[in-house]
């Protein structure tokens, strides 16, 4: 039996799908006993959703007004205070989990395995290094508590149908006040979430401007797709940072990925390796994106993209 604690990611009202992916990662281990921890000001709604995930054995809630909005410096001492009974403490490899989990590891003096692709045993993990150009298997000493972040593109979300008990937990730790939330700004749109969309259309610097991206938004809306961008396009200000796909942006695994005007730097390819089908549209037939594309089309994207939209 391996006891695993998963730190839930949520926005106070809804559990993020990243948590369901962590559950799938944990469940891949035979004999895993999975507890999901919801830290919130009011945990009821999110805890209810976590309890319904198939494969969750127990949901713990830790309520404190200081837990909203989530700050790593505030959550980490609470998570580490509860970590004692668990062999593994997992969080998602999203900016939430990547920020929080190493702070937990630091407090516990425990090793962390980042971006877990496979949990091969309670002490054996596989993860990408060098921007996914190598896969590394690491092993911890039996009996050593390990902290981990779970690579989102490697796991399907656990489905509903569970009915785990929900328990209130409490810890007595001093919470810091040295870190204060000021604001968060996010562009609102009705498109699917980039990290979970089954279809994604991404644009590169060849789109030429923020205006140029409009042809992608239009096609994406017709396909029900999310829109992403290369680092070059984000750096140039054509698209906001949350749309960046790649080693340092979002790593995604859609059914269909359409790269439009993206040359295909290694750092970008890292973010799309797990896509089922990759389509590349680029005027340069020698662009590296064609080396990974399942279907390639050389030509002028400003003609091709609207034409595709007309044809579907």
């Amino acid at each position: 039996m391996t006891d695993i604690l998963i730190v839930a990611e949520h926005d106070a009202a809804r559990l993020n799908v990243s948590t369901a992916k962590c559950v799938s990662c944990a469940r891949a281990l035979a004999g895993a006993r999975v507890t999901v921890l919801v830290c919130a000001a009011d945990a009821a709604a999110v805890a209810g959703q976590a309890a319904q995930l198939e494969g969750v054995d127990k949901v713990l809630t830790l309520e404190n007004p200081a837990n909203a909005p989530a700050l790593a410096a505030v959550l980490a001492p609470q998570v580490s205070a509860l970590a004692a009974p668990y062999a593994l403490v997992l969080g998602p490899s999203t900016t939430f989990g990547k920020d929080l989990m190493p702070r937990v590891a630091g407090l516990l003096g425990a090793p962390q395995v980042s971006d877990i692709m496979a949990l091969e045993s309670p002490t054996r993990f596989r993860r990408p290094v060098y921007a996914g150009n190598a896969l590394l298997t690491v092993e911890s000493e039996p009996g050593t508590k390990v902290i981990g972040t779970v690579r989102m593109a490697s796991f399907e979300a656990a489905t509903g149908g569970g009915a785990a008990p929900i328990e209130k937990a409490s810890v007595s730790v001093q919470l810091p006040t040295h870190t204060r939330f000021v604001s968060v700004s996010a562009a609102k749109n009705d498109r699917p979430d980039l990290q979970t969309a089954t279809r994604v259309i991404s644009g590169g610097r060849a789109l030429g401007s923020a205006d140029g991206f409009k042809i992608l938004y239009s096609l994406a809306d017709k396909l029900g797709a999310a829109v992403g961008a290369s680092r070059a396009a984000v750096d140039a200000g054509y698209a906001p940072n949350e749309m960046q796909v790649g080693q340092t942006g979002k790593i995604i695994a859609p059914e269909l990925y359409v790269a439009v005007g993206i040359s295909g730097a290694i750092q970008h390819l890292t973010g799309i390796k797990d896509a089922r089908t990759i389509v590349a549209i680029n005027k340069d037939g020698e662009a590296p994106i064609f080396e990974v594309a399942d279907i390639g089309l050389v030509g002028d994207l400003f003609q091709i993209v609207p034409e595709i939209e007309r044809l579907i």
Partner: protein
Amino acid sequence: MKRILVGIKRVVDYNVRIRVKPDGSGVITEGVKMSINPFDEIALEEALRIKERGGTEEVVVATVGPADCQAQLRTALAMGADRALHVQAEGVIEPLVAARALLKLIEREQPLLVILGKQAIDDDNGQTGQVLAALWDRPQATYASKLEISGGTARVTREVDAGLETLEVDLPAVITTDLRLNEPRYVKLPDIMKAKKKPLETLPLAQLQVEPRQQLKLVKFEPPPQRQKGIRVKDAGELVAALKKKGLL
């Protein structure tokens, strides 16, 4: 004295095509160009800009690693750091060990701010800044794309999955940098000459009383699975037909 400590790491240059050794013991680094981790270069650039604005009096750059790392420390000095600290250590240095070593340097240097890259592009761990902030019991602001310091606090804009988040942190604090914080300067030849005269102090890890403990054994490196070679289509019509055939439209 107001001081900023910047942590850097020597890594395989980001333009190098990575190849896994046939025996799976690592990746090929012989004869390969090594550089300052790009995110750490951004960290150093930010510290230098703060100094140029009068926000700090000194920029100290530090690394943990073997003797070879001194080349990257010299580059950092050429970029404009005032002095360098080399914590000498061999073998695999896990984030916890690096953070413990940096904490010892913090105790000695008493910096106002510690800036690190958000991740190293070799092991892609992305842990050292947060681990250090935990050990130091100070604030962390990771993935910074904007940093403003006023008095005893810093206002940091962070690139998060939802968009941009702004935090206010009391100083001292640990900041980790994202790509869009700044564009690092190029090193000029006269600065390389000047850097040779700047102080570089070597401190063995043992002297800092940090144990080089490795908690995760590196079992094997493998190349990632290759994708099958794809097809080329001539126009939008053929593309749509191919996608329909695959059941994707």
